[in-house]
């Protein structure tokens, strides 16, 4: 019963309108489109570095790179002495900037689930992602701030959601942003929930049937076009027509392959139907290295990684050394190492790859790349997977991937080398448009102004279902705090973990169990005297606005 309640809640969240970005009145055109980054360190391509160089950008093109280059009179000069210049990053598979459709309440039983029609079955290959782009979508800004300038984007959905496009992350109008339209036919080997095909076996059968039907109708349309006299008119079917470029080998099929066995299903379709294939969002690709290599499939590995384990609870282990548990932990760690070491394993196997941000959170991306590097990927290889390799895999090498004259002005400029832990993005250029990021150091407040949270707080979490009220108690324990939460759905007090009070920034976690599933809840916000304002995130259930006030009685 409770789980139903949460699912409903999920649906409600999904139905909320996407928050718009407040645009500053009217954007003024830049004074100049000529830029000079002077006396800087340029990493032209992985392993090719020039120090003390100047980079000139003019009208969206890199015109000059090298030492002793005169600065044009109309150039805006960026002093690059302590900066590092790299080619803009390319994401091989993502939803960046793509509007998520409103989720329909599909809980009613379909009348005849065996004949749902194309759309309900998730078969919309004719859909064009260009019609679904929102330049103001927050994701564009978030990925660009990391240095991503170009992404191959796909519509949301499962099975055959539609056609991909390669877009620039400059936030321009859809048609202005698109570099390559219909770059791939996108497919996820995942069924819709309650109509045919409702299983993997149904999806794979329908895939083959559609492909064969498309092949037959494509042939017949050509016969008909050559001489229409005396022939039955072919019926046009947009769904089948969407396969024609694939059948003609002019367009690849882009599969999401994030689950361990997905890639094997893709091998079978590829070898049977013989079309060009790209596989993206791979997480356990190292289980199939040799077959991936033999298949020649173009690969984009996921930028998502499972969280690194925390060193908590060590005290307990000392008290009760449990050999079985240790063994399980060891295997879990091996599995985690395999995930983190995926990119290095691909390098060792001689398979080139780009990255996919589809299931990664932007805030984790740079840290994840550093974890992959610690697991054996070299920084040059990591840079190549962000720039030169995806450019090549997507057929964009003549336009991007390196910092060389003639290439598009897609750059990322950092303080400190890119994969340095303290590296910060200072500038990003997308197609010659500059985005500047201020060096804002988060200043910690003095200890004197550190908020005091000891006591009982009434928390109010604003879910689309209404407000839930909880009591949270904090107790001071030396320099840190302990505490618990109770109320609402939580009948017995649950201990808080990771309570972190930094100045007036408060963060803490706890776990609740819903219908046998453990949900990690994290509350994060600012304390102002006796009030609190922040956000609650509850795993995949989403994030909710949260306020609290300290109970004066305590």
């Amino acid at each position: 019963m409770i789980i139903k309640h949460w699912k409903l809640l999920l649906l409600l969240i999904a139905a909320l309108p996407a928050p718009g970005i407040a645009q500053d009145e009217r954007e003024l055109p830049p004074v100049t489109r000529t830029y000079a980054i002077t006396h800087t360190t340029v990493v032209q391509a992985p392993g090719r570095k020039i120090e003390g160089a100047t980079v000139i950008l003019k009208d969206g093109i890199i015109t000059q790179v090298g030492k002793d280059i005169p600065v044009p009179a109309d150039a805006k000069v960026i002093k690059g002495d302590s900066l590092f210049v790299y080619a803009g990053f390319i994401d091989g598979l993502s939803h960046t900037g793509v509007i998520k459709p409103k989720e329909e309440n599909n809980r009613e039983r379909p009348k005849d689930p065996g004949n749902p029609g194309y759309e309900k079955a998730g078969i919309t290959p004719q859909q064009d992602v260009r019609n679904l782009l929102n330049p103001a979508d927050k994701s564009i800004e978030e990925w660009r701030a990391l240095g991503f300038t170009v992404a191959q984007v796909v519509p949301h959905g499962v099975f055959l959601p539609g056609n991909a496009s390669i877009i620039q992350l400059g936030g321009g109008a859809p048609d202005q942003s698109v570099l390559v339209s219909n770059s791939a036919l996108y497919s996820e080997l995942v069924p819709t929930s309650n109509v045919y095909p409702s299983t993997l076996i149904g999806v794979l059968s329908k895939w083959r049937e559609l492909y064969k039907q498309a092949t037959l109708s494509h042939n017949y349309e050509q016969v008909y076009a050559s001489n229409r006299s005396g022939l039955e008119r072919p019926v046009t079917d947009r769904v089948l027509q969407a396969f024609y470029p694939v059948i003609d080998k002019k367009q690849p099929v882009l599969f999401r392959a994030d689950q361990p066995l997905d890639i094997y299903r893709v091998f079978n379709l590829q070898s049977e139907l013989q079309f060009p294939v790209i596989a993206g969002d791979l997480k356990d690709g190292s289980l199939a290295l040799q077959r991936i290599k033999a298949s020649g499939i173009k690969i984009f590995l996921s930028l998502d990684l499972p969280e690194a384990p925390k060193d908590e609870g060590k005290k307990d282990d000392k008290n009760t050394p449990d050999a079985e548990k240790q063994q399980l932990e060891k295997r879990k760690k091996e599995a985690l190492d395999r995930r983190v070491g995926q990119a290095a394993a691909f390098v060792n196997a001689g398979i080139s790859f780009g990255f996919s941000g589809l299931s990664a959170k932007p805030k984790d991306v740079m840290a994840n790349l550093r974890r992959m590097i610690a697991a054996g990927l070299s920084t040059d290889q990591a840079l190549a997977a962000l720039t030169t390799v995806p450019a090549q895999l997507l057929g964009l090498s003549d336009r991007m991937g390196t910092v060389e004259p003639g290439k598009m002005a897609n750059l990322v400029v950092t303080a400190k080398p890119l994969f340095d832990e303290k590296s910060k993005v200072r500038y990003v250029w997308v197609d010659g448009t500059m985005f500047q990021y201020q060096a804002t150091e988060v200043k910690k407040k003095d200890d004197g102004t550190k908020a005091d949270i000891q006591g009982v707080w009434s928390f109010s979490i604003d879910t689309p279902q209404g407000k839930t009220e909880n009591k949270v108690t904090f107790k001071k324990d030396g320099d840190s705090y302990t505490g618990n939460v109770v109320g609402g759905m939580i009948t017995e007090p649950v201990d808080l973990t990771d309570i972190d009070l930094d100045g007036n920034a408060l963060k803490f976690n706890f776990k609740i169990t819903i219908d046998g599933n453990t949900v990690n809840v994290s509350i994060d916000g600012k304390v102002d005297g006796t009030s609190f304002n922040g956000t609650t995130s509850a795993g995949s259930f989403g994030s909710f606005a949260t306020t609290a006030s300290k109970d004066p009685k305590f």
Partner: protein
Amino acid sequence: MRNRLYILLTLAFGIAAVQTTAQSNRGSVVIRNGTVLTVTKGTQDKTDVLIVDGKITQIGKGLSAPAGARVIDASGLFVMPGIIDPHSHIALEDINEATAPVTAEVFTGDAIDPMQVMIYRALAGGVTTIHAMHGSANAIGGQCETLKLRYGTTDPEALRMEGAPRTIKFALGENPTRVHGGGYGIVPRTRMGVEFVIRKAFSDARDYMAKWDKYNQDKLAKGFRGAPPLYNRRLETLADILRGQIIIHCHSYRADEINMMLKVCKDFGIKRIVFQHANEAFKIAPELAAQGAMASVFSDWWAYKFEVYYASAYNAAILVRNGVVTSVNSDDAELMRHLYHEAGKTQKYGGLTDDEAMALMTINPARQLGIDSRVGSIEVGKEGDVVIFKSHPLSIYALPLYTIVDGVVRFDKDKDPDDMRLFVDPTQSTETTVDHRYDAGVDRCMEGTDFLFGDLSTEEN
């Protein structure tokens, strides 16, 4: 730096390990001095069995083994052919495409999951080959795949028994009528409806076949420019049944509906059919034998729903003695680990001979799957699928010690590690080794069909 080197080394070795398992799908073993239960050629005492590169090459005394072959001393032990489970749902990611009364086009072989630990558990019960079936939610369900339990690789292809004949699941009675008639108010709601659905499907397939045959014929004429008929994988598959290319495995319980299905087969010229479960098959055993139909039954399991109340533990024995090719099956990941007990029960109920009872779990299921020329008995030239037991397999003290598939020892009771998972999810809790992707204890035959029933249960109450 050292740490990084270590990780690189682990990765390198990890990859090497995967490759070795993938390549060593055929092995060589010599089994010395065992009591060899060949099933088809009697029992031979103190005899050696030699398997070279996955095939049985010699059976006899004092055989010389090739270099590198593993030697197993089977003195005092019993050597039998690998057990074949003709009705299983393990090693599959999906089982039921339950959304329509006929889904002949889907194929469980598209969803093989080689990483389920249930496969290893089945090996520990002496099972070497399974019939990985579609569920029973539809009158005509999906095609099934025959798998060899080559546990140890993440590549689904490694488990496929290449060249095994195609099979398909049909279902009569309560399951398809409950799902489609009860759940949606569409045909079939009754047993009559099930017959209608099957007959209509075959009739449509016959028309479809005729249309394509005509088109393919016309195409041979010079300058032909006509439109092809609409391609339909469902009808294509049904046509393949009519062409005799697919063996039907029909979930059924009652004698009347089994008899109905026999007539349908006769009318459409279908020769190869195996009735699965078939609790009342004993009532029409002569009719089954006359038509060459086969039966795969439970030893003594019934009364789990209304249509399974009329049942007998003598079912298998009666069928065997009437000349019906009969097997026992599990339909269950736990029961499949002691199919040798299931076969043994037919000696208590019906007094089958050792060879007759042994055949129920070896050569007979092999016949039902069309693989009896390759597996199901210990004979020279057959595939090296062998189980070595402590005590006779039909004894209540039977215990599998080694299970060998294609000459590779896949289970060795002396070397049976605690954690045999092939895939570990790094985000999974380590409290248990339960594979959360597969909840144990559910009715796999009807898995994934709950949503179809909606509030039906309250209607029925």
